[in-house]
């Protein structure tokens, strides 16, 4: 590590100026494994329609929080890039986004409904470790109306689906601009 790195080098690669890029050499950007949108256009269109159906009736603030959290758990770089930018553009705070990866210990950053939604999102995302626990479901069911709750479940399911496409085909983060996919 050199001592003359510019402090501005903490910005993401996509935001670096040519001068910063010279001062600090980033790792080369990888290429996607597969352009799945091009090879399965009907599947992509069906995903867009499913996404639109699932987000109906879900609080847009909660929606972005669960999308970011599920994408963190599933390590979907493209989805984290997209949803953190969309959340910021919609007025979400930087600290609430940063604290999402440790929300259990920073619950006072969030409302009770948001915490219940995050807990549910984790349980539905990590299915392979066991069933969605009764306590988690019941906590969410106490705070969300049935219709709202099943839409939240659908929205968590849909971001898990996007995560699977993004991760398996190794989509590249950094190029998304807020609102591109709205």
């Amino acid at each position: 590590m050199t001592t003359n790195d510019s402090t501005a080098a903490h910005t993401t690669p996509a935001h670096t100026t040519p001068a910063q890029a010279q001062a600090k050499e980033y790792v080369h950007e990888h290429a996607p494994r597969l352009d799945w949108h091009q090879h399965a256009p009907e599947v992509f269109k069906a995903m867009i329609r499913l996404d639109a159906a699932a987000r109906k009736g879900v609080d847009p603030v909660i929606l972005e929080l669960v999308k970011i959290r599920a994408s963190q758990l599933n390590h979907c770089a493209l989805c984290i890039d997209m949803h953190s930018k969309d959340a910021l553009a919609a007025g979400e705070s930087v600290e609430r986004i940063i604290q999402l990866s440790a929300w259990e210990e920073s619950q006072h950053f969030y409302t009770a409904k948001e915490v219940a939604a995050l807990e549910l999102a984790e349980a539905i995302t990590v299915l392979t470790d066991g069933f969605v626990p009764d306590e988690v479901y019941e906590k969410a069911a106490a705070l969300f109306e049935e219709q709202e709750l099943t839409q939240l479940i659908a929205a968590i399911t849909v971001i898990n689906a996007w995560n699977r496409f993004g991760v398996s085909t190794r989509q590249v983060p950094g190029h998304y601009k807020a609102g591109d996919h709205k």
Partner: protein
Amino acid sequence: MSARTTHLDKGVGTAMSALSAAAKKGLGDPVLAELVMIRASQLNACAFCLDMHVDIAVRNGETAKRIALLNAWAEAGEVFSERERAALTLTEAVTVLTDGFVPDEAYEVAAKHFDEAELAHLIGVITVINSWNRLMVSRRIEPGGYAP
């Protein structure tokens, strides 16, 4: 035991069915699609989905032996073809995302046996069953409710 809720928005249900149909049609291999869907449902412990897809597989002519051995397919020798084994490897990697990235080896083995369009739709089928698993497990939809 009873379902936590049986409610599912009609628009979501219709969109899910359309997504399933698009992915399966593009893969063009119904026998393989059922193997993939049973294996993912085992990993995600979705009783409803297991009940449904075992039923469909049997009616498609799948054998009891292959269905039973799916849970140990990696050790089952030639019971599954190289192509099926590649698809099952990818299914497991794409289903268990929280332990790490889909490994290059898993992806590359699949890419050897499937062309790009088949591979995109195989990933689609794996993703769709993972989605149904989530919708059924979280609402605790009971097995046995599926009727062909």
